[in-house]
């Protein structure tokens, strides 16, 4: 038997894994009874349901092809956009808002295929300054600004 739609088949399996994982994790929480539900009751119910839905999606992919294809992964935007956000998350506590913004902007601005290299530093410096003015001085967010 061949799989008609690989993308859906794999997605279904992933959902089975997530649902099964939830079911597995919910073992640690008291189930209780339908009368007096414990913290594990609803999660176990949902985990089981998700696993069943995943099985259904995978089985369906064996016969039915809706024509959707995963296509190639665009690594450049994926890595650089997520990298920009993650670097902000990591740098904020250490370097403060000013430098974390600069870093995140520089990394993420390179994610697009039509980068104009002279624009990146201008954009990063300008937006970092703008966000300092608006969020820290304007809205008064309690946030660390400089490394010290």
């Amino acid at each position, binding site marked *: 038997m061949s799989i008609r739609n690989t993308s859906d088949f794999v997605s279904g399996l992933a959902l089975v894994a997530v649902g099964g994982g939830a079911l597995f994790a919910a073992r640690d929480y008291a189930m209780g009874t339908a009368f007096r539900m414990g913290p594990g009751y609803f999660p176990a119910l949902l985990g089981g349901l998700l696993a069943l839905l*995943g099985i259904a999606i995978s089985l369906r992919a064996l016969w039915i092809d809706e024509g959707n294809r995963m296509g190639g992964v665009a690594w*450049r935007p994926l890595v650089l956009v997520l990298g920009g*956000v993650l670097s902000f998350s990591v740098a904020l506590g250490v370097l403060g808002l000013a430098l974390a913004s600069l870093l995140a902007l520089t990394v993420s601005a390179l994610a697009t295929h*039509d980068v104009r290299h002279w624009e990146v530093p201008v954009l990063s410096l300008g937006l*970092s300054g703008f966000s300092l003015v608006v969020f820290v001085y304007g809205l008064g*967010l309690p946030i660390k600004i400089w490394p010290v």
Partner: protein
Amino acid sequence: MMLNDLILGFSVAATPINLFYCLMGSLFGTLVGVLPGVGPVVTIAVLLPATFALEPTSALIMLAGIYYGAQYGGSTTSILLNLPGETSSVVTCLDGHAMARQGRAGPALAVSALGSFFAGCAATLLIALFSPLLGAIAVRFGPADYFSLMVVGLVGAVVLAQGSLLKAVSMIVLGLLLGLVGTDVNSAVSRFDFGLPELADGINFVVLAMGLFGIGEIIVTLERRKDEEGTVIPHGRVWPSRDDVRQSWKPVLRGTALGSLLGLLPGGGTALASFAAYALEKKLSRSPERFGKGAIEGVAAPESANNAAAQTSFIPLLTLGLPSNAVMALMVGAMMIHGITPGPQIMTSRPDLFWGMIASMWIGNLMLVLLNMPMIGLWVRLLRIPYRLLYPAILLFACIGIYSVSNSAFDVGLAAAFGLLGYVLVKAAFEPAPLLLGFILGPLMEENLRRAMTMSRGDAGVFLREPVSLVLLLLAAALLALTLLPAVKRGRQEVFVE
């Protein structure tokens, strides 16, 4: 008697100081609605301490203004940037942004502002007319009724999702599961926290929404944008054409009615209202295949509905002391700070505050539409900025916004993870919108399911014996059956194939 109450309300709301705070709230609301990543929840939370010194009525007038002001501003980002400031404008992205890509951003913004204004006026009138009466109905809702109500909301989300029903349902279930992360209120057990203390308070809605829709969408957009050079979209005329008006006045009326009703119900609120209004328009439309591709009804109805709901959601708060969403929970906090216990007694003990707030909503809506209609040109000009300059700015504001919700750098990293999830879901042809709705309703559903089952001593038949619950469940079943009809099923598939 009601006339006297309204006169009292306007005499309170129209004092120069209250007019000033109403204007400030509305403007601030629009601004944060337009700024991606900073929503009314953050703004109200940040401004809450600043209201300590104010008179309680002024403080609440301003905070309320931020909420409905953000409904106006939120639609702007949804339409122009495909970035919902809030869940309530998620569905506006579908057709609003499609209209913008077709160069009809102007009419989309105008219809959304005018629809919101109409809904705001109508909802204000409704609050004044029916708040005592409607409070008395809603107070009789039991846990079983609430549970069934949320089931209707989720079924609505499935019906409006494109493509496979199975996939939409699985997204809802995944969202419900994500909503359960964190400490269980009944047993204090921390669930699905992977041993991370940062997850003990659960996943913040802003983190999930910004990750899935903000960050994920940016990656998808960058991937798909390969051939074009820049994104200068000619916006065309700002004012809606006669055809636009003809197509949208009925959806505005229906959205207002549905939104007013759903905003009233706890757990409903603006998000459910806009989702339901969109689903209703899609179902009623003679050409549902236009939805998601720039149908003006898909902007008019949900935008009217969310503004109506934003306003009627004050009814359960003011008459029952029951917050129906995060913003209302913050309003409870604001009232407590000023020594006011929200509940039915406000109407009699502080009629000036109750009616003053209601009157200020009408005034605020008038200010918003008068200020925003001329400023639409300014918003539309945002589209002239090339995307390569725009998306780093959106990302940065999103990062700062996510951080400021609970001053947590961990949340920013978590949002990056949801951004990855959002990208993968789009690639695998799963729609993320039902996930978000499931996420919001998850804890509420569990709470009401538990309560209903405890009250019925473990007998699930209670959902069918309670008349309100039964009617709601039948409605949900009917909606679901409708999508399984061969004709509708074909229609759904045609939409999906594009």
